[in-house]
């Protein structure tokens, strides 16, 4: 397997306070990596670092295997979209295709087909002529996910994708992501609080806690101290 993303001793800090201390991990092509940890453990910060939206204070995060920014899809934790923004659902989904267009100014048939396919996959194609701001939180989430799918050629980064979705929609979303990972070979990096899902779907787990990072397979994670700590408080049948 080819390396896709190498994180070497990356430290992130806000105003001098280290949120993540010397995180080390490597994501390989085709992997499904779940990032977990308690609130404030720096999950979203790490995602920003991976996407180049925040520079590490020390260490580095490198793209490998020829990965380029325009092959990445991204679902933000909370879209900073205001309610009165005049944006059509189709406009939003299509904007995910921009990163594959090079210098071409307009969308072509293939882009439109891709946007349609991604919206259908998320079950929101019927909303294509609606205004994004009028949709419910769950519907907006699906549209943004469709946009992320449009832009993800090799790597899909999801920041808490199921927040705001009901259980059946969450399951569908996990299945869709799994399908993208297995059938299309897209590498997944997903932040989630849902440890069950992480253990079920992921083949690597990165747990950020107290600034130290655990990195390993789900089996290793279950056996580890961090895993027991997080999993212990998470009773299920």
């Amino acid at each position: 397997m080819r390396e896709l993303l190498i994180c070497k001793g990356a430290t992130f800090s806000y105003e001098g306070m280290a949120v993540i201390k010397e995180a080390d991990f490597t994501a390989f092509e085709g992997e499904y990596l779940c990032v977990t940890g308690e609130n404030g453990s720096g999950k979203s910060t790490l995602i920003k670092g991976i996407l180049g939206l925040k520079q590490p204070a020390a260490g580095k995060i490198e793209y490998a295997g020829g990965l380029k920014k325009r092959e990445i899809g991204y679902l933000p934790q909370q879209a900073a979209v205001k309610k009165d923004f005049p944006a059509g659902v189709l406009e939003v989904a299509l904007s995910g295709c921009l990163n594959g267009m090079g210098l071409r100014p307009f969308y072509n048939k293939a882009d439109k087909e891709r946007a349609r396919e991604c919206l259908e996959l998320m079950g929101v194609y019927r909303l294509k002529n609606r205004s994004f701001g009028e949709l419910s939180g769950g519907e907006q989430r699906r549209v943004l996910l469709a946009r992320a799918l449009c832009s993800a050629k090799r790597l899909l980064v999801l920041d808490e994708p199921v927040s705001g979705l009901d259980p059946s929609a969450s399951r569908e979303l996990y299945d869709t992501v799994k399908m993208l990972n297995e059938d299309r070979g897209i590498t997944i990096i997903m932040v989630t609080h849902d440890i069950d899902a992480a253990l079920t779907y992921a083949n690597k787990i990165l747990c950020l806690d107290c600034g130290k990072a655990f990195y390993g397979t789900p089996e290793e994670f279950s056996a580890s101290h961090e895993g027991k700590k997080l999993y212990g408080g998470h009773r299920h049948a």
Partner: protein
Amino acid sequence: MPDILRMFSYPFMARAFAAGVAVALASSLLGVSLVLKRYSMIGDGLSHVSFGCLAIAAALNWSPLAVSLPVVTASAFLLLRLNESKRVYGDAAIALISTASLAVGVIVVSLTTGMNVDVYNYMFGSILSITQTDMILSIVIAVIVCGVFALLFHRIFAVTFDEPFSKATGLNTDVYNTLFALLTAVTIVVGMRLVGALLISGIIIFPPLAAMRVAKTFRKATVLSAIISVICFFAGLTMSFALNLPAGASVVALNAAVFIIMFAAGLISSAVMKRKV
């Protein structure tokens, strides 16, 4: 009616119409993004900077455009950057720069010529002062803004809608922000000669806000904003000629009236939509 048509026989009116329609078009297109990115007051702030520059240029007997263009452009960059860094609130930053420039401008004016007709023209605009150069500059900037919007429309949407996403997925957002700062600065410097420093905000924010009351997609909002702005400018200038009113104020008042109409239309249409659902 012949009276109305006669106004085009005055060269200064023909120049004012050509320059005004061009500026109205450029400002309303840029306005859509500026309003949505919460930069509504940038026009106001930059026009005060421009006022300060004009006062200094007049005192030193320099060319007004040569002083105000670079300084206003630099201020536009500064304001956009300040907002990004989040160290100073964006609206506060605009207020800081705008009031400081206004103060400097007023001091320079009172030390030199005193509050005369020129100052009044800077504040409220003067269609009489539009020169051939102003007209050509307005048309050039309008053509550039229209060209940028036509070719980069989808990218402008993406950067306006969700800048972090655009940046994360490989769009060079800095280029678009820089381009916007530059075009906004030039449009304001040119436009304030026409409608004045105090009213330039009006032609930047009213047309997009009015359009957004009824348009549900970015494309419709942008096109409608441009249409509203051009019609309001044309009607406003005609009204000012016919009724002998100040041109800038007439244009902005009409824009405000259209906004109120659109606001009502938006309320009615959403009420109808709800009833259908």
